[in-house]
């Protein structure tokens, strides 16, 4: 008898989603879907508001990555007041970068320690009571404490620069509204009140070493689990190095060939289109020249390390080279390598934060610049989860007439669906009894992408995620709901 499996909600991801897996009469997977069934709204809400409200308004997209939306919108709004990224004052640029690195650091720490670590520490099919930070706290206390402290360090950076850990404000059109004081800076350097930035670097190295050890013991699983070919998209600087705040867009195919060659972010519309599906509120961005079917790209830590030529900081670059050795120094298409790449990016962010904290420009300098106003602004950054686009158009009175957001997680929409399909075909297909451990592997595959479903759909209200199993008649025969 054919069946349909539902997993709802998908756990330890940001937001709510649902997976359905359709089996045929022989227990073979016929189809699978990762549905995001939340309402999409912010692009519409913001129309009619004055442009200067955008960087504050869009922070409400998410409680996890408000900084990323704040900065992407700020970059776009800078252009509306006539300031391109290169024209921003050094002080404003460096303060924004510091906040951005703090955001990526804390977001990656949250994901690795709170969300992903149970999968690695207890196994992909561990009992449900093991699959959470509470179990990690009980059995791996030191790791949990470090995770919490590292996440908090990033949050404290954000608080110092923007006033609050969540929904603080740093930017104004054309710059920033404040610097930090020497005392605020020293708080992160001297280790008297909180663990210092040097400790953050050391601890990140320790966690990377943990990941290397895990890889050594579980290489086959990491290589094979949810492996599939795809394009990879990320930002690079003029030297082709990893860039998170401002640069050019580059994409490579699954073999490492360049398919998008360092284009300016201003012209993204010439290269990208967005498709929709009738079973999800999340859009499907793709490269126009390759087409809807094969033109989608993975984004985020693994994709970024795939597309860049190197990392501009010493320790992280050394780790990138070691990591890439496992792919023949070419490109990695294995989903589970996201976790390792995320840790290397944490090290990069920690090194960048240390450099910035020792830069006197953070303490004083020109805050705001203004140029000739325009009617359009496009801000693209590399958010923790990948390439984030904010595009605004305004009328002559400065009121927003159009807003287009391509949120990082939407780029990974196809990839997450592929990952679900892989698990359905390789783990669930042909099994008479679907176990909880098997279903957790669906979540493991999705979770590796660290999706932020609330951002990706600009959701309203509460969210969660479900898995459903349907027979060939379309009858629901099994469902797991986790809320």
């Amino acid at each position, binding site marked *: 008898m054919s069946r349909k499996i539902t997993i709802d909600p998908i756990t*330890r991801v*940001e937001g709510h989603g649902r997976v359905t897996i359709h089996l045929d009469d022989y227990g073979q997977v016929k189809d699978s879907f990762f549905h995001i069934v939340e309402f999409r709204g912010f692009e519409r809400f913001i129309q009619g508001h004055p442009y200067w409200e955008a960087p504050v308004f869009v922070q409400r997209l998410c409680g996890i990555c408000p900084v990323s939306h704040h900065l992407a919108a700020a970059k776009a709004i800078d252009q509306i007041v006539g300031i391109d990224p290169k024209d921003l004052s050094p002080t404003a640029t460096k303060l924004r970068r510091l906040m951005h690195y703090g955001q990526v650091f804390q977001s990656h720490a*949250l994901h690795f320690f*709170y969300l992903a670590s149970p999968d690695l520490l207890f196994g992909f099919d561990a009992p449900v009571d093991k699959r959470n*930070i*509470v179990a990690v706290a009980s059995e791996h206390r030191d790791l*949990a404490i470090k995770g*919490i402290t590292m996440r908090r360090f990033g949050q404290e950076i954000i608080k110092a620069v923007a006033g609050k850990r969540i929904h603080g404000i740093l930017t104004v059109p054309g710059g920033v509204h404040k610097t930090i004081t020497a005392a605020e800076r020293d708080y992160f350097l001297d280790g008297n009140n909180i663990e210092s930035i040097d400790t953050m670097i050391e601890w990140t190295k320790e966690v990377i070493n943990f990941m290397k050890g895990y890889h050594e013991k579980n290489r086959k699983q990491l290589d094979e689990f949810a492996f599939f070919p795809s394009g990879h998209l990320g930002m690079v600087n003029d030297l082709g190095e990893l860039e998170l705040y401002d640069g050019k867009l580059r994409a490579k195919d699954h073999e490492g060939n360049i398919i998008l060659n360092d284009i300016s972010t201003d012209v993204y519309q010439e290269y990208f289109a967005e498709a929709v599906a009738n079973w999800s509120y999340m859009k499907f961005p793709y490269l126009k020249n390759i087409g809807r079917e094969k033109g989608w790209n993975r984004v985020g830590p693994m994709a970024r390390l795939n597309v860049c030529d190197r990392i501009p900081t010493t320790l992280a670059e050394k780790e990138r080279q070691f990591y890439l050795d496992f792919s023949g120094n070419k490109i990695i298409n294995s989903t589970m390598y996201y976790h390792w790449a995320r840790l290397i990016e944490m090290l990069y962010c920690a090194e960048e934060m240390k450099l910035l904290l020792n830069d006197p420009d953070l303490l004083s300098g020109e805050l705001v610049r203004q140029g000739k106003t325009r009617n359009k602004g496009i801000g693209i950054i590399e958010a923790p989860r990948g390439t984030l686009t904010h595009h605004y158009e305004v009328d002559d009175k400065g009121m927003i007439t159009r807003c287009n957001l391509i949120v990082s997680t939407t780029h990974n929409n196809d990839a997450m669906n592929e990952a679900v399909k892989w698990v359905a075909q390789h783990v669930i297909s042909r099994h008479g009894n679907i176990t909880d451990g098997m279903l957790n592997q669906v979540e493991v595959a999705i979770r590796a992408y660290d999706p932020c479903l609330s951002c990706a759909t600009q959701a309203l209200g509460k969210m969660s995620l479900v898995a459903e199993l349907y027979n060939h008649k379309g009858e629901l025969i099994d469902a797991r709901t986790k809320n």
Partner: protein
Amino acid sequence: MQEQKIKPATLIIGIGNTGRNDDGLGWTFTEKIEEMQLPNITCEYRYQLQIEDAQLVSQYETVFFADASHQALPKGFEIKECSLVDHYYFTSHSQSPETILYLAKALYQKEPMAYTIAIAGQDWDFENKLSETAKENLDNVLKEFKNKYF
């Protein structure tokens, strides 16, 4: 002067969202306490509790979690002791006070005296104001809180 009953090193965490009408009750309660400028009391504000709050609560002897309640309550509010529990909510977005207390014990070996303060609301729309019922409940809980703990 009446001796303060509350132990030193007390933390009050207001939970909620002032942009959603009565969901702002937890924050408003905490603001009112903060305005009193009492010694040894720290006030924090959260949209939701998160895992790292375990580190914060571990630094205090007494912790109050103040939040709005969707349920009607006999007196319009309820203050009760809160014990640690090792359950986990499915997302990192929010955790219960009980989980936060569990993590404080498991990670930092600290077990503060803890209470939840639930204040009943009735309006949950998109406005920065409390309903009349919520204001009345807020006044009453503030009176009892001051009488009982100060």
